[in-house]
């Protein structure tokens, strides 16, 4: 693993005179040239803008990134600036890998809440972008079947949505009425599906104490969600856990699925295929409001950095609207501020993806900010897969609660 890391690690230096103190920055996006170019651009600008600090970039492939950080933390060789996935941040902050940010008050003004990583009452990380999920649909398909087109103010109700799925399936034009993305195992499950559970009134954990999942993940509302979830598969409305990854990527565009629950990163490809026909609809309201997940990759400062002031200076520098807009234009992410959104083609007023910014602003709910989230996410993923495959709903959710609670107990409450 280490040798592999050494191979992919890319050292970027700009031949600056060594009067500047070096700051190391680790980033998860190795292999993405566009992303790299934008980041290197920011680093270049920062290094040229002042004479105290020089940021040096090292890139990792995403699959190996978290493990590399853990290994570096164990051996005490963390970089000054680290890149962290939003829901994982509390785990690293609690473990003592990260220190709170020290940014000027104005720098976070107008940021989407999902782009700001809070733990223990302090800001530990901040993102230049956020991501959002929407129901991809085609106007003509909905209109042909007399299905109301929902709005942010008036999303589909539970009954309306379920009836729509039945109607679309009954047309016989599609393999499945809805594609949930069961092929995307991993973080997609808690990110995309736990908001549905929250809309039913359940949750992964008691967000007032973060001490127990009892009654939240296995309460009445959660069981109602589980029963509905299972019925989607029983009725053949959605593809199951063995869905082919390629179908997930192209099934909606190929017309195999009538609706698709997907993220803004997939929006451009669908837009190309359907143009104005394409709709990005808000999450249905299952009784407790519509919610979607929030928080993507963010920047933070490592705990043992000797140059925290320099690291903070870089992060603050990177939070300029023009850089936010650059990432958006480059890889289709949602810019973290409205002013940056206005600078982009897709997210500015009237832009084809503007709706994602509105969704993020109106409905985003971050995944539980607790160090235990890492385990919770895995437990929830397995529970959803098992229920989809026909396991008893109540027993499965009970088992998930027990596992989450045992983990919290094993970790002496994770500092709450």
């Amino acid at each position, binding site marked *: 693993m280490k040798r592999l890391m050494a191979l992919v690690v890319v050292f970027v230096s700009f031949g600056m005179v060594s009067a500047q103190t070096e700051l190391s920055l680790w980033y998860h996006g190795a292999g993405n040239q566009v992303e790299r170019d934008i980041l290197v651009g920011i680093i270049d600008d920062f290094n040229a803008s002042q004479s105290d600090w020089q940021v040096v970039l090292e890139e990792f492939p995403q699959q190996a990134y978290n493990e590399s950080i853990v290994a570096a933390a164990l051996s005490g060789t963390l970089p000054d600036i680290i890149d962290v996935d939003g829901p994982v941040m509390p785990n690293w902050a609690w473990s003592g890998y990260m220190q709170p940010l020290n940014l000027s008050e104005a720098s976070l003004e107008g940021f989407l809440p999902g782009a700001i990583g809070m733990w223990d009452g302090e800001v530990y990380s901040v993102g230049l972008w956020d991501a959002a999920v929407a129901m991809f649909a085609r106007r003509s398909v909905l209109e042909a079947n007399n299905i109301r087109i929902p709005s942010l103010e008036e999303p589909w109700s539970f009954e309306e949505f379920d009836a729509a799925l039945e109607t679309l399936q009954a047309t016989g034009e599609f393999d499945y009425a809805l594609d949930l993305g069961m092929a995307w195992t991993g973080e997609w499950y808690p990110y995309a599906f736990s908001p549905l559970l929250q809309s039913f009134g359940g949750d992964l954990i008691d967000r007032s104490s973060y001490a127990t999942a009892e009654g939240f993940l296995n309460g009445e509302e959660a069981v109602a969600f589980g029963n509905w979830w299972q019925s989607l598969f029983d009725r053949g409305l959605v593809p199951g*856990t*063995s869905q082919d990854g390629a179908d997930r990527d192209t099934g909606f565009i190929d017309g195999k699925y009538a609706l698709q629950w997907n993220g803004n990163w997939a929006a451009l490809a669908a837009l190309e295929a359907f143009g104005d026909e394409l709709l990005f609809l808000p999450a249905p309201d299952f009784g407790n409001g519509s919610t979607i997940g929030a928080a993507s990759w963010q920047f933070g400062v490592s705990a043992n950095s000797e140059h925290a002031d320099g690291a903070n200076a870089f992060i603050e520098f990177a939070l300029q609207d023009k850089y936010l807009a650059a990432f958006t234009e480059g890889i289709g992410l949602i810019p973290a501020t409205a002013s940056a959104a206005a600078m982009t083609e897709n997210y500015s007023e009237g832009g084809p993806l503007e709706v994602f910014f509105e969704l993020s602003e109106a409905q985003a709910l971050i995944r539980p900010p607790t160090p235990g989230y890492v385990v919770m996410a*895995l437990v929830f993923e397995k529970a959803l897969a*098992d229920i989809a495959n*026909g396991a008893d709903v109540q027993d499965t959710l*009970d088992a998930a609660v027990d596992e989450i609670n045992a983990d919290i107990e094993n*970790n002496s409450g994770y500092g709450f």
Partner: protein
Amino acid sequence: MQNALTSRPARPRSLQKRQEAIAGWLMAAPVIVLLTVFVIAPFFFAIYFSFTNQRLISPNPTEFVGLRNYQRMLNMRFFSLDPVSDATGNPVLNEEGNYSYPRLRTFTRDNPDYPQLDGLREYTSWQVGKKRLYLLVNDVVFIKALFNTIFFVLVVAPLQGGLALLLALLINQRLPGINIFRTIYFMPVVISMVVIAMLWRFIYDGNNGLLNSLLSFISIGRFEPQDWLGNPSLAMGALIAMSVWQAVGFHMIIWLAGLQTIPGVLYEAASTEGANGWQKFRHVTWPGLRNTAVFILIIITMQAFGLFIQVDVMTSGGPLDSTQSLVYQAYVRGFQKQDIAGGSAISVLLFLIVISISIFQAYVTRERRTR
């Protein structure tokens, strides 16, 4: 030697011996160091961690917890329930005409009358008269992984060994082009298991996978396409078939080596005495392969207990835990769920299982030799 003694002043023999010993140790040193650092030390660490609450990352200090990790995995008890009955004491039948029983969770979750059942879950249950007898376990996933792994070994060991012997007999002939067949059978062994697992995922695909297309072609469309990896009753079988296919070539080569040590004279003698093909195999080939057979059995058993990559790449233990395995669970707990202690406890149990089987197999071998 004599030359050396006469032409040069002889070194004291003890010094020379000591130098040889030092050279020997020096040459062995790289291996000894690597084995110590990467095999022996982690082994003892695992035993130690399994008695603690060690986490992968945590600011909390590690605490000694005794046997708690093992108790959580192995705790099990039997429990029987009476059918639900009406006011007169007659059992109520449900729509299908079966007895109905109260929900287990009313006994196993926070029921002060049954503290011994707290947190337990149903592994399996049987009908005994009017009663329902449950086997309750604390860690259903672990128990499933344990029995899945044992099942995997019990099927794979004879199947893979037998198939390999069959192939070895087939290719142990002097025919033109036989090396081509040897290469073909051996090919999967030299390809990375990860690559093979990825390829077989396409073969087993439920919609338009190769296997479904092939079977439906052979049966002229009468075969119903199966979701091989998505069906709990088929997934384990699918993994077994693929695993046997992958490793059979390796054991075929070992059988082949064994076959070629049997002197041709024995076959000639058998032919002279009028033995037929089966008799030759039964009384010449098989006795000659006995040691090879023992070796192959032990190797396959150990490899099969290490079932991991197929599960990780193809099914992630699902659907419904039908393909969980011990090593996969040790990995999931130790690294994904950051519970090094739990993962270590599984590894230690696996070690105990494998070493007992090896001792048993060694015992059986010794018996045969003295006969």
